[in-house]
């Protein structure tokens, strides 16, 4: 025949090219973000002998930028995972109540003065995240599939409950005030330190590695559970792995930064808008896109009302809510 077709680039190559492009953008945004803040520092400050400038850059701004990137990567990766696992385009750690559960666990741990023992706050956050996702799944599953509307309602109610618990835990603690509640519920990256970065890097690497091992199986869920089973996918094991990996990472992210909403919803959808492909491409590109979005959002949070700061959760909500409403209308 005389017709010609465009030969599509293979999925593996698309993933590599996409990752390189997004990785480059991420790097650029991170470098730019380093030079925004309360003190006006140009790139030249790095090489000048100025100790104060170096301290600000290396001990305050660099950990904060890295932390923003890690939190964004985790939340977007968890969002992509929950959406694929539950076959639900509206799933995200915030909407499902997973972030709320994690924040609740973390707030309880700090209210009971357990924060001085290393690893206790993240462990509580992980437990809270697991509890939340288990409850949401149990409430929303009917006849073997999760109903999108029930999923949203379950998440909504859980979030309300967790907010109340956070307030209660903080009210019971002497000397705490509403500012710390706000920190948990609206998210903040202020006061980022290198220990947080280290903790979160480990959580991210472990969780991402686990997700990569099940990515080939998880993407088979795109066509339904029966289909995946008939193709020899060990569904229970794959789901449990994805569930634990996403909860672990979300728990760790929330333990250091509080609840930052909508990243997990926004980023995977933006990726799908440009490259509607399966989970093997969606996961790495969401991770990079989420990191970029959160570094940019945190920069905005720092400069918009300078010298004060906006909670970063407010910035992501400004971006995420209109997007969510559009998605809800369409689905």
């Amino acid at each position, binding site marked *: 025949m005389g017709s010609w*077709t*465009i030969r*599509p680039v*293979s*999925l*593996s190559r698309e993933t590599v090219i996409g990752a390189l492009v997004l990785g480059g953008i991420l790097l650029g945004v991170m470098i730019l973000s380093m030079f925004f803040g309360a003190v006006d520092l140009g790139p030249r400050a790095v090489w000048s002998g100025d100790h104060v400038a170096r301290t600000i850059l290396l001990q305050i701004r660099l950990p904060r930028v890295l932390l923003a990137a890690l939190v964004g990567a985790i939340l977007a990766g968890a969002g992509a995972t929950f*959406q694929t696992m539950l*076959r*639900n*385009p509206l799933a995200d750690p915030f909407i499902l109540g997973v972030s709320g559960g994690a924040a609740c666990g973390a707030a309880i741990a700090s209210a009971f003065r357990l924060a001085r023992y290393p690893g206790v706050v993240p462990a509580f956050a992980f437990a809270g995240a697991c509890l939340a996702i288990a409850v949401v799944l149990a409430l929303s599953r009917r006849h073997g599939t999760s109903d999108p509307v029930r999923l949203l309602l379950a998440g909504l109610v859980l979030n309300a409950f967790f907010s109340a618990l956070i307030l209660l835990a903080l009210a019971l603690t002497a000397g705490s005030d509403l500012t710390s509640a706000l920190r948990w519920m609206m998210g903040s990256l202020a006061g980022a330190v290198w220990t947080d970065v280290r903790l979160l890097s480990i959580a991210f690497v472990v969780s991402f590695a686990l997700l*990569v*091992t099940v990515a*080939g199986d998880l*993407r*088979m869920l*795109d*066509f*339904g559970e*029966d*289909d995946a*089973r*008939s*193709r*020899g*996918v*060990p569904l229970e094991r794959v789901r449990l792995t994805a569930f634990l990996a996403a909860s672990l990472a979300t728990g760790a992210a929330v333990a250091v930064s509080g609840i930052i909403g909508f990243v997990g919803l926004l980023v995977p959808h933006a990726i*799908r808008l440009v490259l*509607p*492909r*399966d989970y*093997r491409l969606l996961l790495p590109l969401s991770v990079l896109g989420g990191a970029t979005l959160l570094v940019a959002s945190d920069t905005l949070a720092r400069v918009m009302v300078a010298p004060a700061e906006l909670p970063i959760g407010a910035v992501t909500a400004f971006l995420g809510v209109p997007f969510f409403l559009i998605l809800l209308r369409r689905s």
Partner: protein
Amino acid sequence: MSLIELDAVDFHYRDGVSAVRGLSSRFDEGELVAIIGPNGAGKSTLLKLIARVIAPQGGEIRFRGIRIGEIAPRAYAREVGYLPQEQESVFPMRALEVVASGRAPFLRRFQWESEGDYELARRALADCDALHLADRYLDEMSGGERKRIFLARVLCGDPKLILLDEPLTALDVSHTQTFISLIRRIVDQTGKAVLFVSHDLNWSAAYADRMMVMNAGSVVLDAGPAEVMQPEVMKRHFGFDALAVRSDGEGGVAWIVPDAGRHKPR
């Protein structure tokens, strides 16, 4: 040795519906078998059991004489292709990738589809008259086009046994004919066995070698179309008042039409 053999297979859901009770049957290569019966007869459950979506609670299923529970799931998935009743993707995807994902049981962990897999996917699309849809997205296709994409996806894995759950629903008459004659051609040319569930008796009778009538979880009649397409059979197993209409040169198979006279309002 039969390709697949069921021996007193039992299955019931927790709420008690759509059970399969003590079902025994066998299917051979090169057979096109229609599974018919009223709603809730256990037809879909039977396909799910063979596809290993669910496991029998009693009895056993053997593939080439080996109990299917003893075959590695992925190895079994290379031999048996299953098309569920409703097959839809929540997220938009290109047809070629959908079809290529039928190669998944052949891929190792971390392995991506190769150019060879995409070539097989294109060939399967061509077999289903759908190569022109390769770069289109599922959500912008008609029901009939999507059906062909998903059949191509099953064919792409080159299974010996193909299980199709209601493949003819949502197809207009012309697409029904294209689709079922395509399946007939696959059976004749490749010697694969195809089991399909259908509510369309006449289309099934026109193309199938064998019609298996199920009711209340059991096989109540398993015979050639000529024997199944009888008003008494329809009345007994479907509660359907039917007339048999014979046309010349159809090899003795009668078409079943509703007996409108008995249900006309006075």
